[in-house]
């Protein structure tokens, strides 16, 4: 326990302290910002840590290494500057960046609001299912009129 903590502080088991959580949210917002028309939310508003804890907890051990690559004032930078910084990181650590990207996209595209906006249906495919139009089998008419072509 930190020596400066007093007995009234509630100790959390959250894997990131508030500053690093803010940094991660800013990174996610840089990777998937909100759309200009406001229809698509930013990935920075999503519970990325909770998603990682639930679906890919092994990635938690890599998070500190990623966050260490960014200055603490990263969240204060404007979007262009943050994009430039992330681009530098992606080129220096391509495998690590790909894993971060994968986690951000996985979290983002499981979100109900996002899935509704893109027409993907909310939640798991089963038991929901999807409606697919039967299609127009009259398109087969020219094929049906062809002679038998199988080779004896």
């Amino acid at each position, binding site marked *: 326990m930190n020596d400066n903590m007093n007995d009234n502080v509630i100790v959390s088991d959250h894997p990131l302290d508030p500053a690093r959580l803010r940094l991660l949210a800013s990174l996610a917002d*840089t990777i*998937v910002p909100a759309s200009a028309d406001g229809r698509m939310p930013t990935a920075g508003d999503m519970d990325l840590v909770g998603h990682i804890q639930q679906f890919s907890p092994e990635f938690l051990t890599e998070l500190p290494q990623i966050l260490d690559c960014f200055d603490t004032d990263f969240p204060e930078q404007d979007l262009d500057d943050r994009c430039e910084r992330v681009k530098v990181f992606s080129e220096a650590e391509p495998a690590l960046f790909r894993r971060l990207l994968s986690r951000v996209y*996985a979290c983002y595209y499981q979100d109900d609001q996002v899935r509704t906006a893109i027409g993907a249906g909310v939640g798991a495919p089963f038991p929901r299912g*999807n409606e697919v*139009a039967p299609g127009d089998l009259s398109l*087969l008419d020219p094929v*049906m009129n062809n002679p038998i072509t199988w*080779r*004896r």
Partner: protein
Amino acid sequence: MALASNAPVDVLIIGAGASGAAVAYSLADTRMRIVCMEQGDWTRPSEYPSNYPDWEQQQGGEHSIDPNVRGRPADYPINNDASPISVVNYNGVGGGTILYAAHFPRLHPSDFRVKSLDGVADDWPVSYELLEPFFAANDRMMGVSGLAGDPTYPAKQPPLPPLPLGRTGETVARGFNKLGWHWWPSDSAIISRPYEGRDQCKNLGPCTSGCAQGAKSSTDITYWPAALRAGVELWTNCRVREITVSDDGMASGVYYYDADGNEQFQGAEVVVMACNGVGTPRILLNSTSSQFPDGLANRSGLVGRNLMFHPIGFVQGLFEERLDSHMGPQGCNFLSNEFYETDLSRGFVRGYMMQVTRGGGGPFATAMQGAATGAIPWGPGHHDAFQARFDHTASIGILCEDLPEQHNTVTLDPELVDSDGIAAPKINYTLSDNSRRMIDHGVARATEVMEAAGAIEITGGGPARLAGWHLLGTARMGNDPATSVVNGWGRSHDVKNLFIVDGSIFVTSGGVNPTSTIQALALYIADTMKKNLANLFD
């Protein structure tokens, strides 16, 4: 569950996949004691990824089609380093049918006569006409959806109406029509209507990681329940190491490892191998003895040789209009046999089928694929690029006939072993010039289709790496013991009570997904065994 006993059983089947299930069901008529050993277990539909919101990520891990990635206890490693195509499989009750796309065309009549018709490879000792009643029986047993009347096949009647074309199918079909080329709704082992107690397909999408709905006809929910009711015993988590032979040269039983990893022996009067074109030669080559120093049933030297895949080319088209790419059975929409038969002016012999699929993955796969190709950036611009692609793609697979070549082999890896210490298979495979030219031709023709259909961006290539779905030819059938491993009804030339019923007995590959033909052959072999029970070993 293993009910181990040293008392010999009448028939011991190794492998509970497509062919093992069919042969077990058919032989159950005999009321013999039939035991099937399966190295994996039952898979619960509730475990399939489509039950979960992270289904797309699960497809890349423990539910991967790649056994080397999946790495479950039932899986054995496969050394693909010397092959441009990697083996895909599933080890468990149902075998490859758990993960297959369920695209279910039959081989064509000409596929059984390639030597006579085109002067290449060899003719089969069986014909389409001989197998036709077994194709039909298998369609009924599995539950096949399709449309009668395809002019590129002899008449056939699928028991269920076709799966929906959807907007994706309609769009690409118009391209085929503009070119005047053949296309037809695919025969699919996915039920389009309630059938035999199973509910119909509801277009979940991710068929290749198991069907939570139970609409895809995997043998764990088709043949196996019927075979078990008829008295067949299915022992799961039993991995066969080798088949033993007695002094008279007959198969006498198997050594296997039970669920606890303990070595066991089980005697048998008849052994039937149903382990696919990699698993079967693996066990045979591992079954050495003084009588068979080069592997069981291998006096021809052909066990493990003539490995055939179907090299697969692929073309994806991007369309301005929204399709329904991520919905519905991914691998089953329609097919084209326009370039199936030989036309030497194309620069190759034999041909290929075009398999029109739904085209796109889910949102996560779309975003990740877009990141890999640069088509969908992260950061500003992500949303516009994503929405221009998600549900806006259609795909065509080019499934090329792969001709047999003896240098394409399955052998035993000198170092790699499975969790029981059994040598793993090693694949040595090179793509022939004929296959290369076929892929190039197919990619060019599929590109024409996409252009005719109105695609605004077209990409393609091949052969696809992780596409070794079809494992064929490594214990080929034939009438001559010098040039084949089994005879015309699956019996080993060298070991009279050893039968092989899986894809390893294919003489040539044809250019279609093989499961329908594998199962028809298994039913035919079982039927022939039943007709010859009195003199089965003569």
